[in-house]
């Protein structure tokens, strides 16, 4: 059976990609941010995963408001980076873990999830940036991907509990897959930020730091929060953090917090990551 060898949480701020494109990696603004990811990159090199299941939201790039999926799962052979308005980025296409994707879809539907199943679709910075943060800029990505989109833009967005439950089903699905793939699961988005309204620029460092520990040690606390609680504590766009719950729901009740990093602001966002391993 395939196995989940680690759960990662990370921001996916678009300006991270821009910073990498423009070689701003070592500028005073960005260096502390990128330096903190070195441990995560090293962990990834050692862990040698075959597949990354990436939970993220689209940001008005692959989905428009004409048809908004609550959850979508990619089953494509290949995913190209989408042009978000700034033109194409010089990063490789993503190869899909096509067979595993279909298996996850089967299990999700059997377990009463209702995904949009996507065979022809591009991926935006929500997937691109986490891949760059953990794998750098290779000529070809060292893992295949299963993209899973969560609606965090148009209300109603899914509840934290629903995200958690999806994680549990994904784990069951991965562990019932007859292959021997080593799988990492990435919950992305956040941390605290708000782009719209008079509270724009809201960052909550205290809540962010509590989150980075609590997602490891006390996930029930975050699972039991309402969507409104997320918006209040983490900002209207920081509510994206519900997507880390999909990752966390796929892990053991007890996990080891292997690495942790926080930096604020990255652009207008509290930013950071965790690396978790199952502890039984």
């Amino acid at each position, binding site marked *: 059976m395939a196995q989940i060898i680690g759960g990662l949480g990370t921001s996916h701020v678009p*300006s991270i990609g821009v910073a990498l494109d423009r070689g701003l990696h070592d500028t005073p603004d960005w260096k502390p941010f990128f330096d903190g990811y070195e441990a995560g990159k090293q962990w990834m090199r050692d862990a040698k995963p075959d597949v990354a299941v990436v939970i993220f939201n689209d*940001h*008005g*790039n692959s989905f*428009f*408001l*004409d048809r908004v999926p609550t959850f979508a799962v990619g089953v494509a052979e290949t995913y190209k980076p*989408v*042009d*978000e*308005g*700034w*033109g194409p980025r010089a990063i490789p296409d993503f190869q899909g873990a096509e067979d595993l994707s279909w298996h996850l879809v089967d299990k999700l539907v059997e377990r009463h999830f209702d995904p949009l199943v996507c065979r022809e679709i591009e991926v935006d910075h929500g997937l691109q940036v986490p891949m760059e943060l953990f794998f750098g800029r290779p000529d070809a990505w060292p893992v295949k991907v299963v993209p899973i989109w969560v609606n965090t*833009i*148009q*209300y*109603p967005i899914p509840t934290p509990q629903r995200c958690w439950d999806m994680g549990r089903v994904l784990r069951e699905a991965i562990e019932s897959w007859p292959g021997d793939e080593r799988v990492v699961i990435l919950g992305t988005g956040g941390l605290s930020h*708000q*782009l*719209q*309204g*008079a*509270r*724009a*620029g*809201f*960052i909550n460092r205290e809540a962010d730091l509590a989150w980075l520990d609590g997602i490891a040690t006390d996930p029930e606390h975050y699972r039991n929060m309402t*969507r*409104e609680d997320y*918006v*209040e504590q983490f*900002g*209207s*766009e920081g509510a994206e953090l519900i997507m880390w719950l999909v990752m966390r729901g796929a892990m053991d009740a007890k996990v080891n917090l292997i690495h942790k990093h926080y930096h*604020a*602001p990255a*652009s*207008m966002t509290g930013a950071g990551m965790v690396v978790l391993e199952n502890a039984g």
Partner: protein
Amino acid sequence: MTTPNPIPDTPLFDRKGSIRGYRMNKMAMALGNPANRKAFLEDEEAYLDRFGLTAEEKTAVMARDWHEMVRLGGNLFFILKISAVDPVPITQIGAAQAGMEHGAFLAQRLGKV
């Protein structure tokens, strides 16, 4: 979410915004296509007319009035593409939302000195 959002100064993009801002967001979404970006740069008003924007919406877009665009239902994730065609830093858009001068916004909200 059926109740009005209770979090101060924090609009949620629910049905009302989605319906109200539909045309503007669709226009902005289309800027993901290079041919549309070219059309926008060559004759912005004609481009906006293609998407049936109202006079009020056109004025807000053409003035790059981010606060007004959001008030009219624009969602940042879509209308940000305007800032890809006609560059403006995201923090300046944030400052406009907050109703603050850019430097003050950077200092007070983001803790930059």
